[in-house]
Each structure stands twice: as C-alpha cells, then as structure tokens.
C-alpha cells in the first residue's frame, strides 16, 4: 500500500509531501508523485507523529460492557493515536503473561493502534505481593510499564521493591499517587467548594506526599519512576524539585486537568467525577506551566469509559473517570497551544515521542524522516466543532466536553503505513484488520 500525502505542515512549520510505502516514509520534499499511490491532500493540515497514550483503560478482559480492545482502539484512532498503553485493572488483572499477551494480540489483530499492555505492580492489584513482573516483561507483550493504576502502591516497602525489581527488566513503575487513608470516601478536590457542596474532600496533600516519598525512593534505589495524572500545583513543585536533583522521574498530566476546574462539580453532574479530581484554577494553570517548561513530560488521557448506569446516579455512587482519547488533541490545543504556551512541535513531543520513550516503544523517535515508521496524524487545527456523542467512538459517552466547543479535528490517522482514519471518519474495521495482517506479513 502506497500513500502520498501532499502539502502537509510538519510540527516545525515546514511544508512537505510525504510518500509512504510498506509501512515506512520513503520520500519527503515537495512535488512528490507516485503512480498508483492513494493521494491525501493535506493542504492546511498539520502533520503530527502518531500519538501515543501512556494511560488508557481498554477494560478488556472483564469489563467489556465499558469498552473492548476494539472499541477503545477505534476511539484512539479517531483521536490521532497510533499506540496506546492499556492499564492493568482488568478482570482478571493484567498481572500474568497470559493476560498481557491476550490484550496485545487483540490489539494487533484489530490493527487500529498498537496496544501495549501495562502490567500490574502487585498481584491482583491487592498491594500485598509483587505481580509476575519478569514473566510479563519477557512475554510476547514485552511489558515495560507497570502500574496498579486506580490504586496506589501505598506500602513504602513494597514500592521500594517494585522500583528496584522493574529496573532488572528496563521497566518503569507508573504510580497512581493517592494516599489511601487521606482519601477514604473522597469525592472531589478538598477545599472551600467541597465544604459547601458537602462532598468528602480529596486533599492535594494526599497526592503530593506520595509523589514526594516516591521520588526519594527512586533516588535512593536509582530507579525510574513515572507519575500518573499529576493534578495539583504542589505536585508540579515536588517534581520540579526532584528533576533539579537529577532524580529519574517522569510525569504525565491528563487533558482534563489542563482544562477543567472543580467548579464544574457544582451541579453534581457525575460526568465531571474523576480520580484524581478536577482541581482549582491555579492547579490547572500550574499543570500548563509545568507541561510547557518540561517539568511534566507528557500528556496521557486516562481514558476511562464507563457504562451509562455507572454515571446516571448520585455523585457519591457514580464511577470515577472520563473518556478522553477522542478529545485529547483538541483539549491540548485549547489548553496550551491556543493559549500560546506551546507549539505543535511541543505537542508532538508530549503526545508522541516522549510517551513512547517512557514506555520503551520503538519507532517514534525520528518522526517524518525518511525510513521512519509511518505512524502519523493529519490534524486540522483551524476548525472548531461542537463536541457531542457523535464524536465519540468508544463505548463510553462519559465525556466532560459534551456540549462544549473544541478546536481542531483529526482528518487522517495512519498506523503502520495504512489509514485508520480517512476524511475525519474511521476506516472500516475489516479493512483495517486486513491492512494490519498485511503489515505483519511484511514484517
């Protein structure tokens, strides 16, 4: 399959044509032509490297009513993603080689995105004993990221051991930083608003204290630490301090923590219930500043689909989480590009090359160079659209952006040299699966 993209604007602002053949970029420059190639006119579109999400909940196996590998992959592709890291809190938990291999192979079979499973840190996410980290690392899924996400590895000794043990396999612990005792029953950010609304508070210190402990542990044992979904201004400060001391810590922020504040909780609309919770305006601004200055390395969606009934209830009873794959790029544009804090070159870094590097995913380090893997998205930053369930392609419709206007739209996504999104619409599942098989056969 040969694809010729004409007139695309690269993240650095250069304009170029791109010829893609057999999964790699074979030629760049202007005035390219190729007989028989499928042509895509990218005039006015920004070409971004295929986006990589280090934090996705695909729910399969076990919670297929919320999402499956297929539906989550489709949601990812329409959002411009070509690779996602699937969190371990499935049922059974991804704590053995068998589960992670199954998830990876489902992803490969569907072909919309590369699915890299994340392994659990502790068996059954129970926080008691280590999961079979070595087996998962050496499995066909080649797991490199380990996380109990949804739960914090709160036991300091267990966390220390985990940090040390994954080093053996070149892995990283992605910590969900939440002191469990300080957040028992927590429903929203703790502060004046939670007091007024009568919702149990989730204090910033419950996140910051765990991050502070973990960076010191990482320093002590010389391991890599990745901090999931940083949400408070204090956390940004702690990470900035740790990086200044040379500690090997990386951090992510979600799109929603870059845009939304706790004020949205006021109406008790459970679409805005998420963990960690939406914080204050000053926290949002601190996330943006931290992302812009590199303290926070990446944006990761924490895409967390839930069935309708998990959200159609009282706030306390509603599930935590928001879907985010479909809206991530638009939200990032709104939060940090349109506000002048970051360029699309920065976006390419925080949503593609850097998350790939943290997750040890190859093929994302030399985007748009001849010979590079053809994973990319063509994005129209000039449009603005009313975000609705029409734009959602996973099973979950628990998006906080419904009825909002968001900038930008992904027009094309190319994964492994074949299109998964064309003219702003998902390519048919059979066609994608065929193309994926072809790509595998090609090697």
């Amino acid at each position, binding site marked *: 399959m040969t694809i010729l993209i004409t007139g695309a604007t690269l993240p650095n602002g250069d304009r170029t044509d791109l010829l893609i053949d057999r999964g790699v970029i074979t030629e760049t420059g202007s005035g390219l032509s190729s007989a028989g190639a499928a042509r895509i006119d990218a005039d006015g579109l920004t070409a971004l490297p295929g986006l990589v999400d280090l934090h996705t909940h695909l729910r399969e196996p076990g919670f297929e009513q919320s999402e499956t590998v297929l539906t989550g992959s489709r949601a990812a592709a329409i959002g411009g993603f070509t690779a996602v890291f699937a969190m371990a809190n499935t049922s059974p938990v991804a704590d053995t080689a068998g589960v992670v291999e199954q998830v990876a192979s489902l992803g490969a079979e569907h072909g919309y995105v590369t699915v890299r499973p994340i392994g659990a840190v502790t068996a059954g996410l129970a926080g008691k004993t280590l999961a079979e980290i070595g087996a998962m690392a050496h499995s066909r899924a080649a797991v490199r990221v380990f996380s109990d996400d949804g739960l914090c590895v709160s036991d300091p000794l267990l966390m220390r051991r985990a940090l040390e043990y994954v080093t053996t396999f070149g892995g990283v612990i992605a910590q969900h930083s939440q002191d469990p005792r300080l957040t028992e029953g927590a429903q929203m950010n703790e502060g004046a608003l939670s007091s007024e609304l*009568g919702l149990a508070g989730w204090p910033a210190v419950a996140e910051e204290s765990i991050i502070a402990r973990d960076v010191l542990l990482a320093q002590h044992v010389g391991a890599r630490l990745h901090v999931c979904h940083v949400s408070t201004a204090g956390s940004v400060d702690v990470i900035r301090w740790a990086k200044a001391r040379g500690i090997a810590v990386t951090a992510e922020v979600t799109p929603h923590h870059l845009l939304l504040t706790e004020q949205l909780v006021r109406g008790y609309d459970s679409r805005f219930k998420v963990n960690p919770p939406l914080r204050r305006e000053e926290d949002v601004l601190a996330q943006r500043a931290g992302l812009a200055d590199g303290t926070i390395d990446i944006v990761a969606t924490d895409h967390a689909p839930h069935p309708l009934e998990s959200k*159609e*209830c009282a706030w306390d*009873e509603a599930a935590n989480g928001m879907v985010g794959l479909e809206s991530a790029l638009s939200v990032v544009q709104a939060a940090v590009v349109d506000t002048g804090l970051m360029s699309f070159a920065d976006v390419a870094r925080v949503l593609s090359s850097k998350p790939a590097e943290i997750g040890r995913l190859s093929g994302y380090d030399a985007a748009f160079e001849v010979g590079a893997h053809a994973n990319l998205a063509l994005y129209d930053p000039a449009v603005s659209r009313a975000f609705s369930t029409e734009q959602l392609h996973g099973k979950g419709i628990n998006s906080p952006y419904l009825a909002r206007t968001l900038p930008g739209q992904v027009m094309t996504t190319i994964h492994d040299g074949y299109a998964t999104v064309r003219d702003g619409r998902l390519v048919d599942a059979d066609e994608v699966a065929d193309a994926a098989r072809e790509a595998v056969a090609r090697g």
Partner: protein
Amino acid sequence: MRHLLSTKGLTRDEAVMILDVAEDMADVAGREVKKLPALRGKTVVNLFFEDSTRTRISFEAAAKRLSADVINFSAKGSSVSKGESLKDTAQTLAAMGADAVVVRHQASGAPSVLAQSGWIDAGIVNAGDGTHEHPTQALLDAFTIRRRLHGASARGRDLDGVTVTIVGDILHSRVARSNVWLLTTLGARVHLVAPATLVPLGVGDWPVSVGYDLDDAIAGRPDVVMMLRIQAERMNAAFFPNAREYARQWGLGDERLALLPAASLVMHPGPMNRGLEISAQAADSARSTVLEQVANGVSIRMAVLYLLLSGASEGLG
C-alpha cells in the same frame, strides 16, 4: 418555586415570603378543621433513601394538611438503594404522576441530580442530602427564632442583627450548612464553634465567624445557641478523643446553660444525644425550642409544598 434544593440560592425576600406563608399555615394548626384544600388532587411522594421518621412524618403531615395525596417510598434496605436505582425510582414515580418528590438521600447532591436529570418533571424538595443541605430544617429554625423574637408581629421581618452560635459537627452537618446560608441571608450574624477537626476546610470564605471555644461564645451573649447532634462514629475517625472530652469542651451542660442569658434560645435539630452535646436540663428548659421546632417544621413544609405545587410552573422564584 420550581424546586427547593438548598438555602444557598434563596434571596432574602424569597426566604421571608416562605416564613410568612408558614405563619399562615401555622394558624391552620389552631383551627377546628386542620386542613386546607389547596393541594387537592396533587400527589406528594416522600422518597427516603435514608431513614428519618421525624422528617418523613413532618412532610407527610404537611402534605396531608394541604389535602395532597401522600405516597411514602422508603428505598432503604430494599433492592433499590444504590446506583441506577435513583433513575429507576424517579422514572417510576414520574409514571405514577408524582407532582412533588421529597427526597432524603445519603449522597450529597442527589436531589439536584434528580431535579436536573429529566427523568422526572416533579418539583423536588431536598429533605436532607448527605452532608450538603437540609433546607427545610434551616427554614423551620429561622421561623422558630423569628416567632420567639417577634411573636405576632413576625410577618415580613427578617433576622437582622440576631446573633446565632452553631456548635458541633459543622463538617458533617447539612443542618449547619443550610442554616449558615439562610440565617446570614436573613441578616443574622452566625458564629460557628467546633473542634478544628470538625470545621470544614475553606470556611474562611463563608459569611460567618469561627471559634473553638464554647465558653467564649457564650460569654458573647448570643441570642441563639444551636447545638448539633454529634455522631458516635466520629470518635473512631479521630475527630476527637472521646465523648467525655467532647461533652466537656463543646457540650451545653448545666453550668454553661446557667451562664447563658435568660432570653437566649437553645435549639437542637434533633434527635438529641442527651448528656453528650446537650444536657437534659438544657434540652428541657424554657429556653429550649426543641418541641416548637417540631411543630414549626410542619408549617414550614406546608409553606414549601404550597409554594412548589400551587401556581403555574413559571410562578415565584
């Protein structure tokens, strides 16, 4: 009024109007026929996800005095007490033609969720939601204070300059929240007294003063002292060491009662823990309004149901 979800959103004039209508409703209680036909043919559902016999029978009496039909729906303990049940129950009640739903729920905001859900078109009255609000309790407290202070000439008046000290578990108290907003809207000066563990974070933004010392508060000669119920489980969560220490520091015992001006009112939303937050003598003294609060509760709830259910939907507020 379309719904009554909180006192935060009430203006002074709306609040005074509710209290004034309640005065008229209170007159009915003294008549031969204690019933008005105003809500004939209307259906009021008491939807209680949490037990509260007192509040439920108060609403029931109120609705019946206005000739409404009353359906009591206790969702607690039945198969429907979590998750989607709120939606299912609401839709069931809508199908039954409920005109107003009085909701008591353990989750803060549940009445708001119902009011905004589109599952049911009925007027929603918050009868206590989690640790958020209990607006009719605050209204009846304000009504009780106004009656005690102004008697027959209470109509049309607010609580300008009245000093109210609220003592106890502010953090978990929906009664305290509703009273803070309502009493200050009505012009009262509210002072909160509690151990620091039971003062909500961010209370600095509230229109109140805060102290930790009950003796200091009593020395300030407040017009009203409102004692909140303290729940035993708070001890286990390290909010304070034990009942004895709590009673000594923040209980309205006989000695503190003696220091309180003779004209000061002693209020308690009930049910009381005698000997813990309030002594028997304080609860039963002439200054105590505890039983009046119960009687006034019916009048206030009549007023609220009347204002919610009479009139075309675009009516007041």
